[in-house]
């Protein structure tokens, strides 16, 4: 019936690459594996074709900024794989990384698996899984829209919920809302700032007319 997480990891190491899986988390309620960001697509193909995970339920982005800084979230023991494939027990690295979380399911055995890819904030690039599960076509677009994570090989990586000329990626923890969008002042800024911006805009318009 349900496959052991270690069996899945071994299979992935055999088929994809010996160091494809970076972190195995068996202590959480929902077991997860973290894989190399540049191998997510290959791992997904193996999961789908060889291990029967035919259903992608959800694609979710996470901005880890501020999560690990206060020491919370570090209390779990997580096995980590070294370069040569051997196991060494360490904790998760603490940086303001992004991660992309895929929740997949094997429809015949009903087994759930959480697949993660963690990418540095400076170069957020993840291999796409769109050729494996079509659900990801929109899921990855949403993650791109909200976090600015690029999906390498995605056939149509556009914004999905926000307008195409929107600036910034709102679900980043360091996101700041633009003051205006197409000359429309946006709510959310302090009233004094908005009034000042309004006054400046008004002044520039009047000045333009006078000339």
């Amino acid at each position, binding site marked *: 019936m349900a496959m052991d997480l270690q069996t899945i990891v071994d299979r992935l190491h055999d088929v994809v690459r010996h160091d494809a899986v970076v972190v195995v988390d068996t202590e959480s309620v929902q077991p997860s594996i973290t894989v190399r960001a540049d191998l997510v697509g290959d791992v997904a193909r193996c999961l789908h074709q060889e291990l029967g995970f035919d259903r992608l339920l*959800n694609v979710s982005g996470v901005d880890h900024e501020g999560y690990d800084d206060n020491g919370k979230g570090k209390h779990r023991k997580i096995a980590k794989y070294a370069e040569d494939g051997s196991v060494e027990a360490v904790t998760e690295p603490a940086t303001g990384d992004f991660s992309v*979380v895929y929740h997949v399911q094997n429809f015949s055995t009903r087994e759930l698996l959480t697949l993660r890819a963690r990418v540095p904030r400076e170069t957020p690039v993840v291999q796409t899984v769109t050729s494996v599960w*079509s*659900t990801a076509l929109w*899921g990855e677009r949403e993650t791109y829209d909200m976090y600015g994570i690029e999906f390498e090989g995605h056939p149509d990586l556009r914004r999905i919920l926000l307008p195409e000329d929107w600036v910034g990626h709102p679900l980043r923890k360091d996101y700041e809302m633009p003051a205006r969008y197409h000359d429309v002042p946006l709510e959310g800024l302090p009233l004094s700032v908005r009034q000042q911006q309004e006054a400046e805009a008004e002044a520039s318009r009047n000045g333009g007319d006078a000339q």
Partner: protein
Amino acid sequence: MSDSNVRFETATPIGDRAKPIKSELLHINMGPQHPSTHGVLRLFITTDGEMVHSVTPYIGYLHRCAEKIAEGNTYHQYVIYTDRMDYLAAMNCNWGWCYAVEKLMESTGIGVEVPEYAEYVRVIIGELNRIASHLIAFGTYGLDVGALTPFFYAMREREAILNIFEKVCGARLMYSYYDIGGVKWDIPPDAIEEIELFVKLFPKKLDEYNRLLTENKIFVERTANVGVVDRDTAIDYGCTGPVLRGAGVDWDLRRDETYSIYDRFDFDVPVGTGAVGTLGDCWDRYWVRMEEMAQSVRIIEQALAQLPSDGEVMAKMPRTLKIPPGEIFVRTEAPKGEMGFHVISDGGPEPFRAKTRSPAFHNLHVIEKIGPGQMISDLCATIGSLDLVLGEIDR
């Protein structure tokens, strides 16, 4: 082919008037304001005459940054934002969120025991809202394919449900009735009586609907063999709920990954069979919803029979809910499909991340696959059969 089907070739070019006819695809914006799109959905379609060549949905007109808002509000405060997702089944959205947070609390060691009485109340109210949501789907689907009457019938019965909800929680659309740890208030006794009356009368109404629309020849002609979502496509595109079941997949979270107290009830999971056409066509999806209403009535009847005479409606909760670091992805079976919440806590009073996996978002996506090759009027029938709620798609 008989002689009566001979085509008249009136446009045959004669002599040097012969010129190749120049033709190109027509680009049309269907929506954002279009009667068949059920909200502010824009479909960018290219057509060759009446035939659709490609469909590209543009969504986000109703985007209200719910996930960003979640990161600035406490777990309790976010309940009211889940109302605004699937506003036709707000109870089920509330339930999804509350259930996810309860699961997260349980997994991080601060267990919460939802009282048994509250679980029964949740099931009764949740199933009533499923009926209300499917009634809208049924009524508006009739409108989409040209039958005006069923809509009024559907709204009449939905009104009865909304009156019950008004007695239960005071609101008619945005309930916020479920809360983390239970429900906010007890059901008043007269509302229980009304629910009993409703489940007694409703099966007769269902028969009426079936005579009116389900077996209607024009309706069957409009929906059979139209917009076929086969099993593999449904799974590949992440379709859930009636769209998945309409494609012949026997899958219902209430039964297969049972949550709350659904294991105590005896109910069937209707699955599309291709009774009037191809398996997975619009009629199958419609029929699954009609059957689900009957099954919801069954569940409510059993829940009312088992309902304890009295009990707590709310678990003992900490005054300030702070959840230790943890992460969980929990799904519940909402009327539109699997409503999932991916919640991450960091020990603070607000969720660190609260992603919503909305069923209609993925159900809409499949239109890119099944839309091309249809007539425009069939595209309208297909959109209606997916039962979209844009509040949930855009969040």
